[in-house]
């Protein structure tokens, strides 16, 4: 097993329960205390709850106070999932029928009723349309009452020129944020999937107005999202998504071969390689040994093995994070910016944000859970 980077010993307990919930009987109350906190920190308490509660025979082994939190998280996830369904129904009405619209990530898992949507706490709605349809889709949403939050000209330009999505929109009164994309990675990013291939293999969902990515592209999207478009911070949930998508979508040796080929066509071999490495090590994902995927250089793997667990695994926040985790978080942040923007643009962006941070800002209300 790859080192968990000094994570709390109960991290092993959380991973073990995610892999096989039948181990609940061997968890002591003091360990439950931490496992629940770690699961909640990584937005996985609902998933853990679903996995345990799908074995009703196990429930007598779960202490009452623990079961309460599992039920609470399941109820909250179910509620948010319902809110998201309502939002998707409203979006289906608002968007012109002639525009093909793709639902991405969490909302797509819900739309397809995938195993990994169960208990999962969804976040925003991410939609994707072809670049040429973007203006029309945006106008239709604005016309139907969605509004973008107020952002300054610089951020506006950042989104529209260098990003892969419009500034987030929201329907008044709705608690769900909408990101409208035209591809799955920022246009300035190092690794760019083949958009033509992405759009060529879209899948219809029975009885729905929306499309979803090809199953293998769903896996690759989750991998590139985690290993390129994130700061690697507190992202264990994304890894759990990838594990679950793999178990759902890949059923044979040839599926695996096809995934590797598709990763190469999209130039996303490296994020996939890393995703499989940590999925196998931490979530016991059944990854075949002989896959035609080129491994990154040994130094890069060593670097990632040090940074990734320290960034992505949740921790018990009773004390400030240790020095190594703070260093890892900074490295994760730098890596993210480096992969997202070419060097000249990155310098310019950092200079702008640096100057801006010197100006006084109004206090921001903490976005509570």
């Amino acid at each position, binding site marked *: 097993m790859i080192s968990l980077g000094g994570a709390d010993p109960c991290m092993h307990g959380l991973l073990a329960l995610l892999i096989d919930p039948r181990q609940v009987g061997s968890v*002591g*109350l*003091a360990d*439950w*205390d931490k496992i629940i*906190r770690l699961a*909640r*920190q990584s937005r996985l308490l609902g998933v853990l709850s679903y996995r345990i509660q799908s074995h009703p025979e196990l429930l007598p082994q779960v*202490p009452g*106070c*623990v*079961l*309460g*939190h599992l*039920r*609470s998280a399941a*109820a*909250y996830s*179910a*509620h948010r999932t*319902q809110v998201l369904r309502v939002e998707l129904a409203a979006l289906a009405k608002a968007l012109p029928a002639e525009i093909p619209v793709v639902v991405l990530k969490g909302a797509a898992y819900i739309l397809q009723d995938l195993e990994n949507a169960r208990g999962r706490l969804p976040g925003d709605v991410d939609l994707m349309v072809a670049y040429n349809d973007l203006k029309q889709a945006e106008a239709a949403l604005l016309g139907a009452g969605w509004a973008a939050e107020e952002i300054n000209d610089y951020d506006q330009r950042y989104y529209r020129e260098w990003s892969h999505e419009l500034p987030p929109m929201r329907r008044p009164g709705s608690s769900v944020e909408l990101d409208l994309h035209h591809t799955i990675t920022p246009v300035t990013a190092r690794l760019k999937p083949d958009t033509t291939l992405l759009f060529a293999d879209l899948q219809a969902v029975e009885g729905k107005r929306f499309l979803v990515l090809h199953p293998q592209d769903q896996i690759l999207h989750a991998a590139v999202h985690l290993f390129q478009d994130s700061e690697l911070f507190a992202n264990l949930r994304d890894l759990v998504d990838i594990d679950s998508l793999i178990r759902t979508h890949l059923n044979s040796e040839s599926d695996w071969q096809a995934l590797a080929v598709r990763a190469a066509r999209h130039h996303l071999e490296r994020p996939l390689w890393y995703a499989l490495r940590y999925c196998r090590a931490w979530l016991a994902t059944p990854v075949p040994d002989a896959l035609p995927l080129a491994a990154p250089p040994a130094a890069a793997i060593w670097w990632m093995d040090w940074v990734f667990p320290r960034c992505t695994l949740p921790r018990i*926040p*009773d004390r400030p994070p240790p020095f190594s985790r703070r260093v890892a978080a900074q490295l994760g942040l730098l890596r993210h910016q480096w992969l997202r923007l070419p060097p000249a643009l990155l310098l310019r962006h950092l200079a702008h944000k640096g100057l801006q941070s010197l100006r006084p800002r109004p*206090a921001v*209300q*903490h976005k*509570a*859970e």
Partner: protein
Amino acid sequence: MIAACPRIRDLPPSLLAQRFSEASVTLDYGAALVRVRTVLKPFVRDFQRVYGAFFLAEEAGFADFHTEVCSGKGLRAIFGPQSRFLIDGIQPFDPFPREQALPHFEWGVNWCFGKRFNQHVLLHSGVLALGDRGVIMAAPPGSGKSTLTAAMMLRGFRLLSDEFGVLCPHTGQLWPMLKPVALKNRSIEVIRAYTDQAILGPVYGGTRKGDVAHLAPDEASVDARRLPARPHLVLFPLFREGAALTTRRLPSEEAFARLAFNSFNYDLLGRTSFNAVADVIDACSAFELEYSRLDEAIECLRAMLSESTVAAAAAAAAA
């Protein structure tokens, strides 16, 4: 086992402060255990008064919520000192002035219950009981609910909760969520004048709810914190200056709507909360009670509760 633990008020203040800063104190509210750590002296001082009857338990292995009350960041630790409330490292509110650390903590704990305790239906109501016969008092803010709740405890009812009526959807029981009763503005003087038995914390002026002071739960309520009650009576109190005591029996559908829509997580729990609230309304008679004199209202309530018990016993015998 519980008897071996000292009550918070019997501890030397320095020992309590040491426990708070070097380890932690786990508060047993009945339905939930809340672990608290702090180094703020004003908090410990006020805490000892309003949580005096609670026990200082040995550190249990498990707590439902892990909180910390800490000082402001940077210069705010010294100038215009502040308190911050943290739950698992998250700070849900802006800092408060340090002298108001206790009401800040109380609101913070309410936030934890409201956000992360959806295994129960959380009624926005006071709950009191005689034995295991529970009264649910639901009303919007400003209707004198907390004042009546406080007065009932001071006249021998067992306090289960002032703010969060915890209804278990699996058993239909009401669980104690025993916190100090937050009295606001004029209620503070009303309760102070009502009896000299009332243990009140300091008055915090100028909070977002005006003046606030906390009434300490009594020993009997603390000792019974792990005993649930059965819902027997649903009451919608309304204080009106100089009003004669009047009660109006509410039709089930009206009582249902008023109780359900006064809940913190009714919409979140969907069918679960619908069924749980419907069962409460089925089992209880529901009244609107207009009053101006506390003792008169309490006597009326006592009578209603024994009537409802007689009626329930008769119904059970008939069944």
